[in-house]
């Protein structure tokens, strides 16, 4: 990496959930790390050649850590590459992306972890860490080499969009994974109950004539997983919760003191099942968008910290698999570039405060994954997003940097945008 000049971000409002810090201060960055945060740093002696960037009226936050994004490399480079995903992430204020193992080949071997890390280092402009598969080939039968994969750099273990049906397989993986302090991330969805379902089960699905996915498909698996976490004391993270019933299960698990955490996707916080009316396939995601009551319950759970993490669940799909009848279209929406802006809109609407949003999108995922990220403490890596909170804008999907355009937010209005992103003290994105 080439030498970068020291940078001073001046006059911005600094919001750092890792220290509950929210005040105006200057941020001095050198050698890729945060050197100091204080008021009036600009008048003191600065290192030679320091670049001053005026952040007056802007908000400086730790860069986002997106815990769940599908990137098509290796095997589906037409959907997304590590390079294109990193461009999208940088434009969205995301400085660390955790990519999913459901690639081709599956990331279930230390050599593939090594490949992804090298490729990311050589082609990506943000940090990218892979999760490895929990079972070989994502088949839900034999656990992967959790120890060797972790030492190769896998930050967690998951079967991505697959839910593991066998409680015995999952129990052994929890038990074995505990010896390596492995985090197991699980998509909680009973495949037999989900069946051919394509949207939330209920009146709306019945009117649209679409097969529904019951909320119980999620809650049943979560209940089981929590019991397994209790007997194994393994570290467990529910990948994407969507409904009020699951939140009750999660709350009980946390009250029991289990090492259980959970994410919700930004889509489930911002959208609901009514958005699919008109058979709009860009709103077809897995698990499906739920009822408005569920969305409100989920938002409240993020607000009170019950839901630890908000993810993009970035899932690029090209038009060929989306411009199909609803039941035949692929699941998934992109989100790296819009997750923060979507979150800011929720803040603007009063549903969340900014500190909570940044904690859920940056500090908590970094803590759960054990990464040097999600904080602006002096000495931490200078991974930073700068936000212009007053900027109102309308998204034009054509301008997105992702290789795919399947955003549910095309032509949506936003309040607040990312104007600058730094990774290790270097500007990787600047809005001009």
């Amino acid at each position: 990496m080439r030498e970068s000049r020291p940078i001073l971000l001046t006059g911005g409002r600094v919001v750092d959930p890792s220290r509950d810090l929210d005040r105006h201060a200057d941020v001095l960055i050198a050698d890729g790390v945060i050197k100091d945060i204080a008021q009036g740093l600009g008048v003191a002696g600065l290192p030679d050649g320091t670049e001053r960037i005026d952040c007056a009226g802007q908000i400086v936050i730790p860069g986002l850590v997106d815990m769940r994004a599908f990137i098509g490399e290796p095997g589906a480079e037409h959907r997304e590459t590590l390079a294109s995903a990193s461009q999208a992430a940088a434009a969205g204020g995301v400085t660390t992306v955790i990519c999913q193992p459901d690639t081709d080949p599956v990331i279930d071997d230390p050599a593939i972890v090594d490949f992804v890390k090298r490729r990311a280092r050589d082609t990506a402009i943000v940090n990218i860490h892979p999760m490895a598969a929990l079972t070989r080939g994502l088949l839900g039968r034999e656990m992967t080499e959790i120890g060797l994969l972790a030492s190769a750099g896998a930050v967690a273990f998951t079967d991505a969009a697959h839910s593991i049906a066998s409680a015995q397989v999952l129990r052994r993986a929890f038990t074995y994974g505990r010896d390596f302090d492995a985090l197991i991330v699980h998509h909680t969805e009973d495949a037999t109950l989900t069946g051919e379902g394509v949207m939330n089960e209920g009146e709306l699905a019945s009117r649209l004539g679409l097969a529904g996915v019951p909320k119980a498909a999620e809650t049943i698996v979560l209940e089981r997983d929590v019991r397994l976490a209790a007997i194994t004391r393994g570290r467990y993270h529910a990948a994407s919760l969507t409904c009020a019933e699951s939140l009750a299960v999660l709350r009980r698990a946390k009250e029991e003191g289990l090492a259980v955490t959970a994410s919700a996707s930004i889509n489930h916080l911002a959208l609901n099942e009514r958005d699919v009316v008109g058979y709009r396939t860009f709103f077809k995601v897995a698990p499906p968008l739920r009822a408005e009551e569920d969305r409100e319950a989920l938002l409240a759970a993020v607000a009170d910290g019950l839901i630890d993490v908000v993810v993009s669940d970035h899932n690029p799909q090209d038009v060929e698999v989306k411009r199909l009848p609803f039941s035949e279209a692929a699941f998934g929406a992109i989100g790296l570039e819009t997750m923060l802006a979507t979150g800011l809109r929720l803040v603007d609407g009063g549903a969340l405060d900014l500190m909570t949003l940044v904690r859920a999108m940056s500090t908590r995922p970094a803590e759960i994954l054990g990464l040097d990220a999600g904080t602006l403490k002096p000495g931490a890596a200078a991974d930073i997003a700068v936000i212009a909170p007053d900027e109102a804008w309308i998204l034009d999907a054509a301008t997105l940097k992702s290789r795919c355009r399947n955003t549910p937010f095309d032509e949506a209005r936003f309040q607040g945008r990312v104007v600058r992103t730094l990774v290790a003290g270097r500007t990787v994105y600047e809005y001009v």
Partner: protein
Amino acid sequence: MTSNPTAPFSLSRRHLLGIEGLSAEEITGLLDLAEEFVTLNRQVEKKRATLRGRTQINLFFEASTRTQSSFELAGKRLGADVMNMSISTSSVKKGETLIDTAATLNAMHPDMIIVRHSASGAVELLARKVDCAVVNAGDGAHEHPTQALLDALTIRRNKGRIEGLTVAICGDILHSRVARSNILLLHTMGARVRVIGPSTLLPRDIERFGVEVYRDMREGLANADIVMMLRLQRERMSGSFVPSVKEYFHYWGLDAAKLRHARPDALVMHPGPMNRGVEIDSAVADGPQSLIREQVEMGVAVRMAVLDALSRNLPNA
């Protein structure tokens, strides 16, 4: 260290079904007796007439080469008539129950039956249905008392004592009768026992056995006097209990680097048969700290001691 010849040692029981219930005195008595047979076995004339006229049946429901031949040799050297019965699964499928088999054999008036069975508790069940002495040669994941005794004899001959030693038992504790019998014996004799293995291969609540539990070999081996490796069955290494042979050997296989964490004079044991490159590296298995061959020799002597001691309680003795 041999027993007083004027008061011949005997066990105050008809069967040897496990280490559980044996006192330190009984264990010491058996080991002392076995020492005599170690000497005998190294002579040209290895035979005694102690069991002359007695009939010993080796009833093995589970295939075993080394344990069965060890018991066969032990019986023959003491002068017994030995019959080997290997009951394959196919003849079990003919429908005869374990109790029927026991009754049939009992009618032939054997003096000793040596039994191995894949089900825990099966040997004890059989023992209740026969009039002769029964020796457990391994029942399921429960006990394998003669293995623990031969391990104890091997340790005592090399370290001069068992009390106060730190013994690390490593690997597949969950499925191991060898581990259970050894934990019981070593505790009775005053050793400190550690178990080391991945959590998937440790039995639930194993710490309540009074052992120290380690998941990391280097930590668990620190200052160990004895390192006991256990065999890991092939079918358990491909993703069910551990992900792969490669990963198992990397973290739990005993190689020279891991062995260096034990005491410099630590000794290495393995009940056999070994999976080289899985739970143990060849360089260690065949190295100067290995007692693995000596364990086999001690096996015959210990089994002679057990047969001898039990025979003293037989009717007409």
